[in-house]
């Protein structure tokens, strides 16, 4: 029997379209890409990569049912023997096994705590909220707002203590508060190379401050000279990273963290690392990064802890350990990628949620803030 098609050309085109699109819809085996790209990692990170990546497990999670005032945790900080969690409903503090919550009724400027840092010298806790900055010193809150102080804006996304200065990244520019003179200095597109005043992250190195500016890449501020320079995506392409490793992967940056001479930059479109000379880009399609959508980043020693919408990634620049979860079952995976090797370990319980927003690491402990609570993990030995 002879089959006559009315539109044979169209059918062929349709079949070809299906076949060619197969690669786009099928999940990629990332180890393949890792294998392909691992040879390009020839830099100062080589020594670091020889160290085994820390792997955390034995997760215990806390939410509104067992200690937190609410489920949504924005940030977390380990402060000696206590853990501070910034939630949408106030500050939760775990001390001696007990949770205690502090809210506006206790003097906090706003319950939505988006960021925090602890001054290592004084022990004062600086809380960046949706309604101002609170200095929490042993139970007493001192509040700074755009109305009662020189602070640029009440919406604070990041806080960093740097000696006597406290830096904030806000919706109205970056601000630097000198705790000795009690003066604010504001940095916006008016006096710094920013695209707009919206800033998402701020971190400090020994001699520089790095500001993650929305649409403006990374703004570098040299403390000694008080001069700025900016690092933007050189290819200027907002859709893809046209030329790999030519600079920060995208102008829309969401966070920055500096450790051991390395600046790590988070964007909603991938991860960047800068060693002072070279930039390196990481994406979910060519590295172990679990997702390009990065909410927050923290570097500790040689490891970057990357909070994404698909779980927590950790990397030393070459090797990766990712933590993901099935939010319904509270079971998840720990995916270990050492060069070409990939191991997947089932973890139960696992992270509270894949949408990770904050992380802190100290010693053998890791705490991860997620949109469904905060998770506490231990270093696996």
């Amino acid at each position, binding site marked *: 029997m002879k089959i006559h098609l009315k539109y044979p050309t169209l059918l062929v085109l349709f079949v070809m379209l299906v076949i060619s699109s197969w690669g786009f819809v099928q999940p990629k085996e990332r180890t393949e890409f890792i294998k392909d790209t691992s040879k390009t990692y020839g830099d100062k990170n080589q020594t670091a990569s020889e160290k085994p990546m820390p792997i955390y497990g034995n997760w215990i999670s806390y939410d509104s049912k067992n200690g937190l005032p609410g489920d949504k945790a924005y940030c977390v900080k380990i402060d000696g023997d206590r853990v501070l969690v910034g939630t949408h409903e106030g500050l939760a503090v775990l001390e001696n096994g007990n949770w205690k919550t502090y809210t506006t009724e206790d003097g906090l400027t706003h319950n939505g705590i988006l960021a925090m840092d602890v001054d290592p*010298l*004084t*022990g*004062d806790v600086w809380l960046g909220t949706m309604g101002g900055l609170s*200095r929490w*010193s*042993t*139970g*007493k809150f*001192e509040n700074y707002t*755009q*109305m*009662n*102080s*020189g602070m*640029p*804006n009440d919406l604070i996304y990041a806080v960093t203590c740097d000696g*006597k200065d406290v830096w904030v990244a806000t919706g*109205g520019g970056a601000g630097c508060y000198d*705790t*000795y*003179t009690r*003066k*604010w*200095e*504001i940095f*916006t597109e*008016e*006096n710094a190379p920013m695209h707009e005043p919206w800033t998402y992250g701020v971190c400090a190195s020994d001699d520089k401050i790095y500001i993650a500016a929305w649409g403006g890449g990374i703004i570098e501020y040299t403390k000694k000279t008080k001069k700025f320079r900016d690092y933007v995506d050189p290819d200027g392409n907002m859709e893809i990273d046209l030329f790999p490793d030519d600079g920060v992967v995208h102008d829309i940056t969401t966070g920055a963290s500096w450790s051991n001479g390395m600046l790590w930059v988070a964007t909603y479109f991938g991860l960047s690392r800068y060693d002072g000379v070279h930039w390196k880009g990481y994406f979910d399609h060519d590295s172990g990064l679990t997702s390009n959508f990065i909410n927050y980043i923290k570097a500790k020693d040689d490891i970057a802890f990357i909070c994404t919408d698909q779980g927590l990634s950790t990397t030393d620049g070459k090797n990766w350990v990712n933590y993901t979860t099935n939010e319904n079952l509270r079971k998840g995976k720990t995916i270990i990628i050492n060069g070409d090797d990939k191991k997947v370990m089932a973890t139960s319980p696992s992270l509270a949620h894949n949408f990770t927003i904050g992380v802190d690491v100290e010693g053998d402990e890791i705490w991860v803030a997620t949109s469904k609570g905060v998770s506490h993990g231990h270093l696996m030995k």
Partner: protein
Amino acid sequence: MKNAKRKTLLWMLILFGVIIYFPGRMLARHHVNDKTAVTDHPLKCTSCHVYTSKNKFVTSLINEDYYSPFNIAVSHDGSRLYVVAQDTDELLIVDTESNVVLHQLKVGVHPHSVILNKANTLAYVSNQWSDYISVIDLAVSKVTDTIKTGNGPSGLTLSADGSFLQVVNTYGSDLSVIDLSTKEELKRLGTGSDPTGTALSPDGKKLYVTSRRSKIVPYGEPLVSDLTEINGETLRVGEHHNIEEAYMMENITFTPSGDLAMMTLIRPKNLIPSVQIEGGWMMTHGIGVIEQGENGRIIQLLTDEPNSYYSDPFDIVVSPDGKRAYVSNSGADRITVISVDSIRAILKETPKEELKNIANNLGVSSRFVIKRVPTGANPKGLALSEDGKKLYIAEQLEDKIGVLDTESLQMEAPIDLGGPSRITVARQGRRLFNNAGHTFQKQYACYTCHPDHHEDGLVYNMAGKDMGRNVTNTQSLREIGDTPPFKWNGKNQTIYKQDGMRFSTVLTRTEQFSYDDLDAITAYIKRGIKYPPNLMYNPHGELTESQQRGKEIYNRTKDNFGNVIPENNRCYTCHPAPLYSNLRTADVSTLAVTDDSILFDTPHLGNIYASPPYLHDGRAATLEEIWTVYGEDNKHGYVNDLTKMQLNDLIDYLKSLGGPEQEEISSQTQETASF
């Protein structure tokens, strides 16, 4: 013929003299009546035109340079006293056997406190108007080094091992921790507002810092002051204790056993109308006792009596056996001797719920006050000899060191530091200013609400019988001599009028000052009260870039859009340099519904950074709030076009402002007071 001519000439001269004299006298009388608001003030031109003169030659003739001893330390063996002479910027080393000043060592400007190291080989002196510590080698009696501090260094402690010096920074409201091995500031810890006192527990584990100003709270809420507890080992803040309804916690000490810490304090009733003064119990004075055991209670006890008050408690020390405490009442010229065991008994038997009542009990002092010992004028810092047998008292306005025999509780002959024997008019004024003797039941001195001749940061309901009406923020008295009129409503055109009859009617509720005393206090207020140098915001007399930008905004005539700003809405119109006041009243749209309908006196802006809260009723907690919260209609300066950065620049400039002298002399070489 010749005689007739002479007679005629003589008569003409007499006639001319009579014509001149009587209308002249009448004019003079009118002038004095106008300035003093009374009709019987003696017609003495010297009152206004000599005692308050700014002419350097005249002031050198009428004034003297006093030592004004402020704080003391005593050596282990009791042979030496180290006396801070605040007005000559010196540390005096005194031999206690011969009562002779052996050395006068120049230190920084306006020294505050002195502390000795354990070996008694070094002395550290905090220089409040220089922002550094003078290090003195006691073997050679020389200043050998200086250590930079925060702003306004005052109280001092050494860590238990002697490796850290902790310096209270009064104007910075923080504590500098100085590593003595490097002589560098290690860190700065936040404290309460305007702190001075500090004490380390005997075991070295706990350090307290007392604050003098309360936290800024809206009128109607009881005041709360901060007692900062610092971990003596980690050197981090351990806790901020709320001390309710009290402020001016000048100094603090521990008992030798460490079971109690004790501090001086004042409990003001600023929320009730000041008509209450004549009912008593408006400004009360006492001590705070902080239990160190498990209870950890903080109890306030009044040292006043029902009809007699002992104002402005300043220093407190405890005897080596822990049984007695001595408090200097600066406004009453008394040392209050306290039985600490009686206080322990009160603490033991008083249930927690009754503690608040005890804090307001004027009768409780009879249970623990052993004696009131009269001293010379204005007793300040105290020091006990190591054996506890002698109490040395810095009699600031007597220029002497009082000596109390603690066994007989009798004063011995004081140690004369060798200052001027003459009491000048301004010095007499300063004594009056600091003494509560002119107030009903001696409830308070001028100094009580104007500590350091400044202001206490509180809002009072002045004179009116209606609660909460016409509330006013205490104004600073620093450098106000040339800024009439006075009071927020500008009703008093001179200090004579302010401190004369009206003063006694409204504030002291007793007889008014005698005219000689009025001359004296006016002379002191008008010329004797200087600004501390603005080392925080204008240390070198040069504006920063931000302050320069702020100055341009201050002096601008056009807004950001190029529109001309109406003259009355420009900053400099009402606040022109050098006084930063046009000396007129104005409506800046701040009249509250509880205010009588008045215009407000334009305040000067010198050292404005040090005077929160702001506006006549203290509604603005910060300078920013004057415009971000209360400046919506652009009537208090045209600001609503400013960006946040521009407003910051403007405020940065305002904070840099000092007095007229700031531009003439460097802050480091500012003249010391000579009153």
